[in-house]
């Protein structure tokens, strides 16, 4: 059985020292081992940006795609081979700006993949521009007088889009983050995990200390029920989205693969491609 070390390779990430993404990488490696995966059972698909490099830093099948499109690529991988565990990952710009259309539709489609967003509320790789997760008033290179656009409440949005698994975590809580990723992988459907992963170079507002001060752990809220969507929404709104833990999970709804009419139980990548002649003649006769 593989351990988290089997999911490591020798590549040194090009992230800045202190970047939150290191912990996310470690958590994915640990979670993969903990749920009993072998490296060749896992495909990590990522987008573009600092965090998008993660697919190259985990020893597994990895696909570093184009900006904003990790989700459609990852969904294609899963549809082709339902035996694989598929993790999509990227930054908040990738998932909530250029790729937001795909995020909403991946949520409502509910294909069984896990989407991990490394949310630092800034564009790091392009050297410090505003992100759709930046707060109003946040000063960046592209918003020198402070952002005037509202930040997207992605967890709330996910709930209204029909999400079956919504969680949020913080990159320093390696243990909690690992267990949330495990729960996401084990969830039968689309799981969205937003991880606050501070950018130590360009975001001097939403720092590690800032999150420690502001994040509310759901485990501290008495009677919190993650199967209650209404409660999830209310709690998010009361805390301006700054909560951590599994916010909502629907354990009943079947995944897309289980609902798709006629879709093979055997991995499509393994089915015979040849069409028998008799069948071909029948298809032709339908046009006669």
């Amino acid at each position, binding site marked *: 059985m593989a351990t988290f070390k089997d999911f490591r390779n020798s590549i040194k990430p090009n992230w800045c020292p202190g970047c939150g993404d290191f912990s996310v990488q470690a958590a994915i490696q640990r979670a993969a081992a903990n749920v009993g995966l072998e490296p060749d059972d896992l495909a990590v698909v990522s987008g573009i940006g600092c965090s998008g490099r993660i697919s190259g830093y985990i020893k597994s099948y990895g696909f570093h795609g184009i900006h904003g499109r990790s989700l459609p*690529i990852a969904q294609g991988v899963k549809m082709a081979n339902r035996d694989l565990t598929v993790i999509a990952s990227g930054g908040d710009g990738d998932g909530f700006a250029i790729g937001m259309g795909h995020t909403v539709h991946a949520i409502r489609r509910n294909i069984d993949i896990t989407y991990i967003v490394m949310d630092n509320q800034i564009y790091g790789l392009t050297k410090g521009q505003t992100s759709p997760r930046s707060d109003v008033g946040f000063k960046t290179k592209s918003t020198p007088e402070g952002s005037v656009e509202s930040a997207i409440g992605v967890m709330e949005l996910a709930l209204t889009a029909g999400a079956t698994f919504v969680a949020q975590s913080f990159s320093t809580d390696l243990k909690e983050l690992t267990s949330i990723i495990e729960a996401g992988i084990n969830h039968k459907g689309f799981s969205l995990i937003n991880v606050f992963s501070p950018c130590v170079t360009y975001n001097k507002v939403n720092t590690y200390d800032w999150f420690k001060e502001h994040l509310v752990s759901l485990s501290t809220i008495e009677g919190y029920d993650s199967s209650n969507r209404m409660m999830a929404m209310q709690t998010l709104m009361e805390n301006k989205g700054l909560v951590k833990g599994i916010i909502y999970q629907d354990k009943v709804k079947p995944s897309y693969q289980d609902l798709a009419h006629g879709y093979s139980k055997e991995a499509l990548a393994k*089915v015979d491609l040849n069409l028998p002649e008799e069948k071909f003649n029948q298809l032709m006769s339908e046009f006669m």
Partner: protein
Amino acid sequence: MIDQLSWKVGGQQGEGIDSTGEIFAMALNRQGYYLYSYRHFSSRIKGGHTNNKIRVSTSETRSISDDLDILIAFDQETIDVNVHELRDGGVVIGDSKFNPTVPEDLNVRLYSVPFTEIASELGTSLMKNMVAIGATSAVLGLPVESYLEVVEEIFARKGAKVVEKNMEAIQKGADRFNELSGGQIDGFQLNKADGKKRMFMIGNDAIALGFVAGGVRFMSAYPITPASEIMEYLIKKLPEFGGTVIQTEDEIAACTMAIGANYAGVRTITSSAGPGLSLMMEALGLSGMTEVPLVVVDTQRGGPSTGLPTKQEQSDLMAMIYGTHGEIPKVVMAPSTVEEAFYDAVEALNIAEEYQIPVILLTDLQLSLGKQSVEPLDYSRVEIRRGKLDPKEELPETDDKDGYFKRYEVTEDGISPRVIPGMKNGIHHVTGVEHDETGKPSEVAANRQKQMDKRLRKLQNLRFNVPVVKQAPHKEADILLVGFNSTRGVIEEAIPRLEADGLKVNHAHIRLIHPFPADEMRSMIDKAKNVIVVENNATGQLANILKMNVGQHEKVKNLLKYDGNPFLPSEVVMKCKELV
């Protein structure tokens, strides 16, 4: 007795114009006539003039005709718009409901038949189409029973009574026409057809059938005219084989999802038209860079922007050859008949996998949507070739320090061994960033050059069956006619007329647009005094590609049409004479 005629039915969109044409054509197809149809329609669901022109012939035909023999009109607008197309002595049959009239200066025969009234008497005005079909049969001298089989199939689910009523409507339409005309009118009776069984299908059907036969088991696509039929067919058929179709949120998702699924080992396609292809351009580059096989169908329609969404055009050529930033190996193939569209769909899948590249299967609206008679397809020609991929292969451990597989190994033919996720010892990285042999990002200059050369080398030895369809009887021709996609039929029809006028004409129809078959075309051009490139666009894109690859600029002349309609044979004949 005649060997071919043209029939047109017109009315308001949503009034059953298509199904009228369909029933008429299917019945004749069953008798062994060759059919070729052209639909004039607009981008709206109901309302607006629409018509369906169908050519019936005792021999193979792949073009609409210059004129019209019979016009069936459900409203006066149909007559006003189309009456000038009728030949001298042609017939108009209009619904007496709208008191049809024809211009007095035209020599056409008008018959006012109470389509709606007869149908209503039988129970529902919906059957007015059947009455019109009955009137048509009377003109052609076809027995009403010819329709029985088709009517039974269409209305079987609704019960014997409905079948009976519809047949009665056809009979009454025929009877009423005969009463009005006083018996058979001359000049409309078709010679008997050969009675052979053929399919009646559109190009999109053939492409979709080719994909099913060629092993496609997943499709991700976004609806668009004139491509949607491919998706609709696969939605119906793939579940029988365990496959499925996802209608994505946009064409970017359609294309990238297809890339993800191909990467993971399933033959996956997407199809669209110009606007969708524009959105897919970045993804095409990803496919080229990551060497993930991909087949995309582009059903060309009128551009630019939303352009003429339901009209014929061939103006995506340059975009398909050069589209995407940077430089990738890509194949653009352009079938010229419905049969070729089927075989090319299968071959596109093979080429994409063998060379690990994106392949554009280019059609145009008239090829994609023009419904026609098609000879049965040859199952023995369908083969599945996956190149350097064997999903069942047991891979040895690699000597890479991280245990990574050399997915981008530099090889002599440029094609690297391919593995798919899930295979033991196959782990590698895939990225749109320049990368080394195991797929790890690398900006090292020497590596960059090696990988770029490797990718581009793949097409140096592209094997492609019949890149140019040649009909070249003359060693020295006055004219070489060049075209691609659906213009083949109209060119073939123009040639005998030009030859009758003493011109020697050769014909080259280009099926492999990129990489361009320069050698084959050069030898054809050398044998001709004039090269006339027939294409449905305004800037002569194929002519420019020809000049760029072959030279001989002084010989090359443009014959262009970009008003949204396909060429008529007479237009090609007339303009060729002007040009030489």
